[in-house]
């Protein structure tokens, strides 16, 4: 009985590899150096001429990262990006990396640098 319970408990907990937003920021800072939330906010709001359909992060995530966004093409609702409003944001390093890759390409037509990622994450965490 005990063994069965242990096995089931293991099965149920395995996928949770969650980190805190601060741990994710620390790992980015370790690559990039000190992060600036102010620069991160500039990146969030900057209009880019390179974007094909979305010219800024705010195009899908809106001017207010605490508010729900909407995908410019599919119109699907997107949960808020700021961890203060959506608690699973910036808790899965692979997910964060995947979306930086996609969305920086989408808006800036290039990858974001480690510095930009650190700044952006610092800004999101700073939103209260």
């Amino acid at each position, binding site marked *: 009985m005990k063994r069965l319970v242990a096995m*089931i408990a293991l099965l149920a907990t395995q996928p949770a590899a969650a980190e805190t937003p601060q741990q994710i920021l620390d790992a980015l800072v370790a690559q990039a150096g000190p992060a600036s939330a102010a620069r991160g906010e500039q990146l969030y709001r900057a209009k880019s001429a390179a974007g094909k359909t979305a010219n800024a992060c705010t195009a899908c995530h809106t001017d207010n990262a605490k508010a729900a966004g909407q*995908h410019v093409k599919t*119109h699907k609702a997107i949960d808020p990006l700021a961890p203060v409003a959506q608690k699973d944001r910036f808790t899965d390093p692979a997910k964060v990396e995947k979306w930086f890759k996609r969305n920086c390409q989408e808006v800036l037509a290039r990858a974001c640098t480690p510095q930009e990622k650190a700044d952006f994450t610092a800004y999101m965490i700073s939103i209260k």
Partner: protein
Amino acid sequence: METSGITWKNLSTLILAVGATAFAISQAPANDEAIFPMPAGKTYVEECGSCHTAFAPGLLPARSWRRMMGELANHFGEDASLEEPRRLAILKDLETLASDSPQANMRMRRINGAIPANTAPQRIADTGYFKYMHDEVPKHIWQRKKIGTPGNCIACHTRANEGRYGEREVRIPQ
């Protein structure tokens, strides 16, 4: 039981949660309800339900999914590429539950019947069945801000990510 910290109640919840995942794929929905089988586990909704509705595999034939899953780097102008073996695992689920799979229910077969065999449509909203089912939705409704496009199933079918398109679960946003 109290002393071990695990009660019968939460033990059975765990068993149910584990069992439900394995069961989901084998479950054949009743033919008269608008319920489509969905891939088991969270991967499909996480990977294919992030930018839009996690479309039920039974809305398109396997050849459509094979083509789409072979062109993910340019997916409707978007980079939706996936690492192996994840891409292959999703493709396998899509094929298993596609509209022309051997286990397709009546509704899925009807969808399939309206798709010419020599085509591999990529847009669900372009298929005959979709048009037929929505021909009473007036044009101005599709243009509402929260809907925007017919492909935004989940804006109206609130449980679309679970494959549920039944009448009682439709809420058309204002």
